[in-house]
């Protein structure tokens, strides 16, 4: 991918990601999150990870965001009313975040391989679905089945949690 496209999608992802936490209206936040995830999926595809990019769109931009929007509409949450902002806590939270970002950036700056470009692949089209599927069903067969049990437990748990208490 050309550097131009990379920077477009990176800036898109970061700007809409920031809009998620800056918006007061939860519906606007959810829609910004969708755009941010679409930009992220383009970044995945620029790394030749087409399978991950596709399931990013399907699972996050599709299923998870519909779930979020459903819950927002179900609970009828409007834009939160302005409350008295605890400036001490807000400054502390922002300060900790900035310190975290500076720390990570310093680590990346001193990480020698980070300055190298990506090595070329053997061919431009990689059948990554085939490769990931083969790994999933051979090396990672047990974790794959455990994840299946986890999803089942989550489903049962959600049904139990959202059931009304019998009186």
């Amino acid at each position, binding site marked *: 991918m050309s550097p131009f496209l990379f920077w477009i999608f990176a800036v898109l992802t970061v700007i809409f990601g920031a809009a998620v936490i800056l918006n007061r209206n939860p519906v606007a936040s959810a829609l910004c999150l969708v755009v941010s995830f679409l930009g992220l999926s383009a970044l995945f595809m620029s*790394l030749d990870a087409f399978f991950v990019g596709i399931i990013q769109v399907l699972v996050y931009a599709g299923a998870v965001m519909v779930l979020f929007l459903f819950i927002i509409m179900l609970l009828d949450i409007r834009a939160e009313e302005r409350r008295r902002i605890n400036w001490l806590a807000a400054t502390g939270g922002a300060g900790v975040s900035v310190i975290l970002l500076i720390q990570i950036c310093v680590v990346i700056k001193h990480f020698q391989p980070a300055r190298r470009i990506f090595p070329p692949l*053997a061919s431009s089209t990689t059948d990554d679905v085939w490769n990931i599927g083969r790994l999933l069903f051979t090396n990672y067969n047990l974790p794959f089945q455990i994840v299946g049990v986890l999803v089942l437990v989550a489903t049962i748990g959600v049904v139990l*949690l959202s059931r009304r208490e019998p009186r």
Partner: protein
Amino acid sequence: MITLGDYLVVSAVLFTIGFAGVMLRRNLIIILMSLELMLNAANLSLVAFSRFRVGVNGLPEYNAEVFVFFVITVAAAEVAVGLALLVALYRARQTTDVADITSLKF
């Protein structure tokens, strides 16, 4: 040219945005969305490292992409359970603001 560090910086910025959302916002739905942002930032650096480490057969490191697959699956289950908890909480208290939920505060 785009280096590995560029992807790592984008991932770090996304992670920090999610972290700031968890620290600063008090709406539980926004906090859940910020958690998703942080998980996706970690996924981005995983995929970048997977593409960076090309093996002798000229293919990227697919173990990392399998890990991303697991992260996405667990994150989807986590969102479902988290939103169900949110609905149950809203039923009991009619609020999604963390400042109003202080029963367990020491």
